[in-house]
């Protein structure tokens, strides 16, 4: 389909708008929260966090395949997914910080240093910032190789960040895979799934576009080198 990419992007955008309507207008201030209005960040904070994990896992996959067979596609995939992981990671971290400040209060810096979920997520994000900066230089095979090794470290960082709130010292709530998952109010579930699906489609749209640009750039560079 000629416009399938655009269709995906627009559908994702509309779903996120639907989530906002649902979270901000349809449902009132949340009960049992110190900051009942800031709780509305939940509908986009959680999806952006999950998409960040997805993006960084794709970097891990792409890096592993590149190290295995030097596939140009895998390298592009890892590079493009890193950028999106950074973007969605920023959304998750920043929105989480606002929510945390409203709900828990206290000093943000000390929370980031003492809460293992926050600390490991920030560390993971900074790691991929490092990857992004490193990739921002002429792309020799050595750069690609080193970047792929760096990208592979997500194999450790992603599960560490995701599981830290379960096994390490953390105030961060855990819902998925716990008893609380079943007790989620239906209104929360609808908003959450809509936001998650919306962000997933936006991710696919942006990723697809970025991959296309990267391919064009590489093709042009190749052509330039061939023509001397």
């Amino acid at each position: 389909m000629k416009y399938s990419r655009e269709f995906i992007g627009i559908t994702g955008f509309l779903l996120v708008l639907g989530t906002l309507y649902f979270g901000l207008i349809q449902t009132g201030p949340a009960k049992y929260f110190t900051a009942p209005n800031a709780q509305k960040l939940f509908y986009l904070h959680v999806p952006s966090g999950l998409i960040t994990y997805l993006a960084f896992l794709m970097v891990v996959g792409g890096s592993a395949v590149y190290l295995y067979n030097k596939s140009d596609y895998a390298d592009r995939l890892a590079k493009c997914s890193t950028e999106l992981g950074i973007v969605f990671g920023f959304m998750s971290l920043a929105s989480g910080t606002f929510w945390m400040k409203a709900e828990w209060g206290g000093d943000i810096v000390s929370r980031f240093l003492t809460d293992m979920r926050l600390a490991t997520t920030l560390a993971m994000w900074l790691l991929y910032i490092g990857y992004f900066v490193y990739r921002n230089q002429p792309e020799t095979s050595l750069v690609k190789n080193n970047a792929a090794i760096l990208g592979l470290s997500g194999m450790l960082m992603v599960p560490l960040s995701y599981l830290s709130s379960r096994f390490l010292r953390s105030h961060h709530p855990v819902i998925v895979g716990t008893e609380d998952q079943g007790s989620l109010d239906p209104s929360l579930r609808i908003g959450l799934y809509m936001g998650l699906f919306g962000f997933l489609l936006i991710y696919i749209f942006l990723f697809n576009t970025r991959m296309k640009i990267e391919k064009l750039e590489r093709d042009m560079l190749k052509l330039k080198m061939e023509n001397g």
Partner: protein
Amino acid sequence: MRFFSLFLVILLLSSNATAECREKECMLKEYKYQQDGGMQHTFYYNNIFNIGTNWYIIFDYPSGKSDDTISFEFSTGLSKVHTYDPDKETDSISFSGSSFTEEIFNLELYVNITGPEGPEGAFVLEIHVNKPSAEDMMYLWGGMTVFWIAIGAYTLFLSNKFRELSNKSGLEDGNREKN
């Protein structure tokens, strides 16, 4: 952009704790009531009742009285009665911040002083009930802005890259799809 970053930092680092003041000096209004016998009462209060924050009225009264009571009743029906303490000359009562849920202007507070032999004095004070905007709304909008800024900035980044490529290759818009 710098201003926005500065705003974000100030917003995040600012403390959201507010202390309630129960001192006479913090009260914006003062009302003196002279009884027939020359005895004087002075009432200190804030004429704005902020929903969510306890509201206090402090009063000075003649010492040595033990059987007298003073009652405070809002026109909405909410009331409290205080019995004089002979050992004190100043006392206070409070109404919970959750006593009201909506804004009310010119709300009347009936104050009645009653002695052992019946009513000794009555007067009316007027206050306004204010509904302050929720403190966490700022954080909600701050957090929501983050999503749109991030997606918008990345879309702009992609758009610039496309334009750059287009300029380099001299491709027309229609030819892009062929690649």
